[in-house]
Structure formats: C-alpha cells, structure tokens
C-alpha cells in the first residue's frame, strides 16, 4: 500500500519527536550488545519483514534463548518492546482504523525507528572503544 504524502509527513514528525527515545535505545544496546552483527540482524529483519510482530518476536526470541548468567538482549528487550508498542499505537492513531494502512504505517515507523536506533548504537560504540 502506498501512503499519502500527508501520512508520510505525519510519520516523519512523529519519528522526529521520538528520536530521544531511539537514542536511549541505541545507547542501551551499545552497552549490552557490543557485537555489531546482532544489531545488523535486527536491522535487516526490520527492513525486510512484512509483519510488524515478527520484530517483537525476534527480540523476545533473542532474549529468551540467552543463558541467565550472561544476559544481553534481556537487558534491553523491555525498553525495545515498549518502544515498538508506542509505534504500534501511533500507527493505529494515524491509520484511522483501516487495516492495510495500519500495517503499512507500522512498518514505515519501524523502519524509521531502526535507522535511528542503529545510528545511535554505532555512535555510542565509538565512544566506548
């Protein structure tokens, strides 16, 4: 589904306002997960998936398979899932209830969000090294 210019503008405005939260998520990820490949996997999934819930399931799965002695995803998963829920709520508001628009807006928001998170993750890693 193609989103209107007006909707894309609303998405951009929302993502601008959401930026500080994405920044926090990126920094938390840098502290918890210094291994870049895991974050690249998340980024690739968000960009390629056609189903928003697959992103949530990926994070839960990563956190769930870790050993208790060495939690990495477990430390960041609650905040990431909370942020994704906020994106989902925003999509519901912007879509006016239309299912196709809701799904398209959610994915658009998620792709914008992950770009912000990964950029801040990489930048935070620079500061750590």
């Amino acid at each position, binding site marked *: *589904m193609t989103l209107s210019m007006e909707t894309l503008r609303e998405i951009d405005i929302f993502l601008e306002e959401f930026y500080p939260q994405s920044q926090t998520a990126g920094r938390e990820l840098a502290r918890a997960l210094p291994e870049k490949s895991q974050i690249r996997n998340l980024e690739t999934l968000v960009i390629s998936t056609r*189903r*928003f*819930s697959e992103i*949530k399931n990926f994070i*839960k799965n990563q956190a*769930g398979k870790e050993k208790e002695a060495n939690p990495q995803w477990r430390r960041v998963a609650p905040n990431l899932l909370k942020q994704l829920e906020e994106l989902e709520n925003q999509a519901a508001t912007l879509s006016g209830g239309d*299912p*196709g628009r809701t*799904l398209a807006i959610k994915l658009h928001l998620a792709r914008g969000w992950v770009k912000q998170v990964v950029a801040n993750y990489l930048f935070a890693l620079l500061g750590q090294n």
Partner: protein
Amino acid sequence: MTVSDYLASDEFRRFQDETLHRLACQAVETYLHDHAEKAAKTQLHAIPAVIQAGGLSALNSLGVNQQDKNTKQVNKKFWTFLLSLIDKTGAAPAYALASGVREELSRQGLWQDDAGITDKNEKNRLKKVNQHHLEAVLEASLPIYFEHFTCHYFYRL
C-alpha cells in the same frame, strides 16, 4: 466475502499481526500464572517444525503423544494446556486459537449462527460451511499463533 478473499485480505494480515499476538501472549501469561511449575523451553522446540510439516492434525498428534508418554507431571500439564488452545469444540478459553478464529469469523460474516434455524438440512449445511471456514482460517493462523506463543514463552520464562 468468501473465506479465500478473507485469507488474502489486509484484515487477515492484521488479525495475524495483532489479534493472534495478543491472544497468544495472553495464553502464555495464563499458563505461567496458573502453573507453579513451568515446562522447560525444550518442550516447545518441536512445535514449529511439526506445524510446518503437518499443520493442525500433526500438532494435535504431537500434543496427544507428548501428553501420554511424558512421565513428568509438569510436561503432561503443559501439553494438556497446549491442546486446549487448538480445541475446536467451542469449549476452549477465549485466548485459545480456535476461539479467536471463531470470533474473527463472526466479525467478518463468515460464521453464521444456526440457533434459529429449524430446517434440519439447512442447519447441517450451515454447520458444514462454518466448519469449512473454521478449518481454513485455523490452518492459516496456526504457524503465526504458535510463533507468538513460543517467542513469548521463551521471553517470559
């Protein structure tokens, strides 16, 4: 709308993405709340492959088999719970897959109430149509519901 149209629609995609996610998470939360002793994550490992290989009937067979062969009470109870999620008889809890699908079919006008129909032939015909719709949407929803279920279980355990 026919059931094929529905399965190809955005409504169904949203049902998979949101409703099934909510129901599966609720199922996990209920299981964890109601059972002092929880089944290990390993119990869930076979579920996706079994669903992919044989759908609902294969999952049902796995559940029955695990329920019968397991010597540990904790695992037996887990599989009893899991079987309740795919129970098609109408006795399943609200968070079960079959209940969610039935409710969604009603919302989409694909499940018709036969309570007021007195003609036996018409009643049987309606039952068959409803059953056909239920089976079709259940099969299509099964992998996603259990993806949500297993990921949430992994995360919350």
